[in-house]
Each structure stands twice: as structure tokens, then as C-alpha cells.
């Protein structure tokens, strides 16, 4: 077996990067063929994969092939072929300088800083790259954009900027973090990984009301993402539950589709002055009606979806709204469930406690953005915390923190 291992891939492909890093870290030589630059190689990959150009496709000296292998599968193969020692188990787990959990504004900003300083950085994202910012229609208060910026556009730019310096975003989830002293072990959907430092920037998820009908009609009349599902309610009537900034902002967004919106507020409107004065125009135009002191009781529908929401008003009287759909924006729950057995300290609401260096009670594990106790839940501050965390991580890696 004098022949080399051949890796077919492309420069933009994160899994290719991962496999190459694995081989590099184990000092295993291979030929790299970029299929974007070699049409014959692209054809070969397509032939191997029944017409799909699935990469990385790796051909081994014995002519066996692995397509998109996990690092575990790759290491097993290398052991079988006697290219790698089986007792190399510890180092067979991929190691990175930093692993960031989440790829929202906080982690993407942190990744711009770390990768720009050549700190090898891997991000895990289980949902949308760009986090909650990506699912927000228009962001009016992020600095640098005179007329605001669309969430998707901001997310795309942040991601492009981080990738330009070499950040790699893996589409997958981190399930747990374990402190092993100098190394942190992360259990992920791509197998176990080791990191010298970890940044937790997992933000939060939408809270549910918990009323009957909410789960049953999920995505069939009950929604949590206006930019995703609003278009299905052209000329329809909607209820929006909530009274904070998100509820008001999203109600305004939904008026571009819906004929009318009942904004159901549990106590009183808590949205900012700016949003409230904007809301007034829509109220005056008859597009939005605000109902304060209203508690949702049940979401009712049939096979065609939702048709009403039953509520109780301030006097405990039942009030029914005939609507075609409900959007829920009643706040957020921190994404820290996966940290249960990690020993990382959380506050009473489940946000991560940090010191002034944004470091948690575990050395080498940092937190930034919405998931951090004391965060101000804004994109600009999430980005700022990401930058701070990255600089502190560098100090930590250099043994200066």
C-alpha cells in the first residue's frame, strides 16, 4: 500500500476541513483535490456518489472509500488499515483551540477575533447561523446601518466575515461539556471533541404559553417566527400574544400580510417608547388592536388549522377572538439545559454566571451574549461580549489569565 490517501473536497466545505484537520493532526499525509478546480475530479466524486457531488469523499490506499466520515469513522478506518495506531485513542478525538457553542451574533463576533489571530476555532450551530438575529426582519438599532439592516443580511455578513478568517461552522449540536482540566470534552452530534477553551453563546429559545391547543396546532396556526410563517396569513386575521419589544415589533411586521391583528397583552404593554409610538400608527389605521389584561386560555381549531383563541380578560370574563392564526412572543428561555451535568454555575433563571472576564466558574469555559447572566439581550451587546470573550480566551490560551 504505497499509494496515498486522496481527499476530494472544496475549500468552502466544513466537513472537508474537519477531515483534513484530523489527518493533519495525526501527521497522516494525503493528496488534496479541490473539485471546484478539477472538473474531472468532480465527475469522479459524482460517479462514486450516484450523481451527487458529496464531499469529502476519501479514497484509501486499498481503494476503499469513505464519504463524509465522522472523525470517529475516519480514525477507525485508519486503524484498520494500520495507518494509525489503535492506542492513539486519546488523540483520535479531534482537538481545537476553541470550540464555540452556538453561531449567533456573540459567537460569530468572537470567532472573527479568534480566527483573525490564527486561533483554531470551530463553531457548532444546531439551528440558524446568525441565531435570533437571523430570524428578525429588520434590526433598527445595530450600529453602522443608517436605515437598519435585515436580520438575514446581518447574519450572512457576520458569517462571511468569520469564515473569511478561517472559522468553521459545523451544523450540529453540543449535548454536554465536561471539564477535564486543561482540556474540555464536548459531546456533539459529530462525536466527542476536545477544546482548550470553550465559549458558550447559546442564547435562548422562545417561551411557550402552555395553554391547550398550543402544541397541537404548532406550525398549523400557532407560530413563533413571524419572518418564517407570516406569509401564510395574507389577508387573514391574527392574534399576537405578548407585550414586550418582540411582540410589538413582530406585530408590526405581520401587518404586511395580515388584514388585522389582535395584540393580546397579559398585563400592560412593556415595549420601548419608540416601538409604542410606531405601534400607534398601526392602531390608528385599524390594523392592530391592543387588548391589555388578557390571558390566553385555549387555542381552538379543526382540521384546517386554528380558528379562535379563548382568553380571560381583567375581570376574569371569557373573551373569544376569531382568528386564523396565533403568533407567540412572550419571552425567552436560556439554552442552558445541556449544561446540567457540567458543573457550570447558573443563576436562578438558568443564565450562566461569569466574572468580569466573562469566564464561568470553570477555568477555560467562557460565556457571552443572551445566555450570560447580566446580559442586556441586544445584538450590539452580544457582539461586544463576543469580542471581549475572544480577547480573554486568547489571554487564557497564552496562560495570562
Amino acid at each position, binding site marked *: 500500500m504505497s499509494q496515498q490517501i486522496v481527499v476530494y473536497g472544496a475549500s468552502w466545505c466544513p466537513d472537508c476541513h474537519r477531515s483534513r484537520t484530523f489527518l493533519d493532526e495525526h501527521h497522516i499525509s494525503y493528496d488534496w483535490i479541490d473539485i471546484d478546480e478539477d472538473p474531472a475530479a468532480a465527475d469522479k466524486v459524482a460517479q462514486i456518489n450516484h450523481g451527487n457531488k458529496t464531499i469529502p469523499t476519501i479514497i484509501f490506499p486499498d481503494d476503499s472509500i469513505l464519504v463524509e466520515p465522522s472523525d470517529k469513522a475516519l480514525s477507525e478506518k485508519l486503524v484498520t488499515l494500520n495507518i494509525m495506531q489503535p492506542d492513539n485513542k486519546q488523540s483520535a478525538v479531534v482537538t481545537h483551540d476553541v470550540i464555540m457553542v452556538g453561531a449567533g451574533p456573540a459567537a460569530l463576533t468572537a470567532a472573527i477575533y479568534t480566527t483573525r489571530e490564527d486561533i483554531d476555532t470551530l463553531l457548532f450551530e444546531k439551528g440558524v447561523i446568525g441565531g435570533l438575529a437571523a430570524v428578525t426582519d429588520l434590526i433598527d438599532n445595530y450600529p453602522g446601518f443608517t436605515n437598519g439592516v435585515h436580520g438575514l443580511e446581518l447574519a450572512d455578513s457576520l458569517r462571511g466575515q468569520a469564515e473569511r478568517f478561517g472559522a468553521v461552522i459545523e451544523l450540529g449540536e453540543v449535548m454536554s461539556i465536561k471539564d477535564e482540566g486543561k482540556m474540555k470534552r464536548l459531546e456533539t452530534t459529530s462525536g466527542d471533541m476536545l477544546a482548550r477553551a470553550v465559549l458558550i453563546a447559546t442564547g435562548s429559545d422562545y417561551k411557550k404559553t402552555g395553554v391547550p391547543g398550543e402544541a397541537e396546532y404548532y406550525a398549523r396556526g400557532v407560530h413563533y417566527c413571524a419572518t418564517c410563517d407570516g406569509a401564510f396569513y395574507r389577508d387573514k386575521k391574527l392574534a399576537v400574544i405578548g407585550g414586550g419589544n418582540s411582540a410589538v415589533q413582530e406585530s408590526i411586521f405581520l401587518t404586511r400580510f395580515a388584514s388585522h391583528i389582535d395584540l393580546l397583552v397579559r398585563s400592560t404593554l412593556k415595549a420601548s417608547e419608540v416601538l409604542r409610538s410606531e405601534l400607534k400608527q398601526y392602531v390608528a389605521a385599524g390594523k392592530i388592536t391592543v387588548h391589555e389584561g388578557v390571558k390566553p386560555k385555549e387555542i381552538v381549531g379543526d382540521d384546517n*388549522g386554528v380558528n379562535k383563541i379563548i382568553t380571560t380578560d381583567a375581570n376574569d370574563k371569557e373573551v373569544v377572538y376569531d382568528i386564523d392564526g396565533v403568533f407567540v412572543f412572550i419571552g425567552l428561555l436560556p439554552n442552558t439545559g445541556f449544561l446540567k451535568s457540567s458543573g457550570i454555575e447558573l443563576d436562578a433563571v438558568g443564565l450562566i454566571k461569569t466574572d468580569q472576564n466573562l469566564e464561568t466558574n470553570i477555568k477555560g469555559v467562557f460565556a457571552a451574549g443572551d445566555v450570560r447572566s447580566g446580559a442586556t439581550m441586544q445584538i450590539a451587546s452580544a457582539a461586544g461580549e463576543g469580542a471581549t470573550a475572544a480577547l480573554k480566551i486568547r489571554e487564557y490560551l497564552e496562560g495570562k489569565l
Partner: protein
Amino acid sequence: MVKNITIFTTNTCAYCQMVKTYLRAKGVGYDEVNLDENPHRRIEAHSLSGALTVPVTVVTKTDDSQEIIVGYNLSKLVPAIS
């Protein structure tokens, strides 16, 4: 084996972008139906998925059977296209 893939999307939907990003990264081709540009096809997306949401990804196999994935859900998308 996959014959073709159609994704119903809208302009503002971030999860639609993720399905496209994922398929592109895997070198898998797809057709896109943008419901902002083709609002009359909303009914089609609804009747295929039973849901009022995008993305709806329709994976048609070579035997013409169809798998329909609602939302950006890698645990369903990955097996459907492999």
C-alpha cells in the same frame, strides 16, 4: 435514491436559508419555490406538508415516493437525502 428535491421558501425565512446551505454544502441540487414570488403556490405547500410554515422540503425518490420535511430538521433531512 433521490430523484429531485423541491424547497418551498420565503424571502425572510432564515430556516429556509439553512436547508439550502446544508444541501449546497453536501453538493445536492434542489429546486426552489419562493412563495413571496409565487403566492398562489402556498396552497400546494400547505397541502403537501399539512403545515402553515416554510421551509417545506419535498424529497422525491427514484421510485416516485415522496418524503416531506417541515422546517429545518437535520435529523429528518439527513436520512431523507442519503
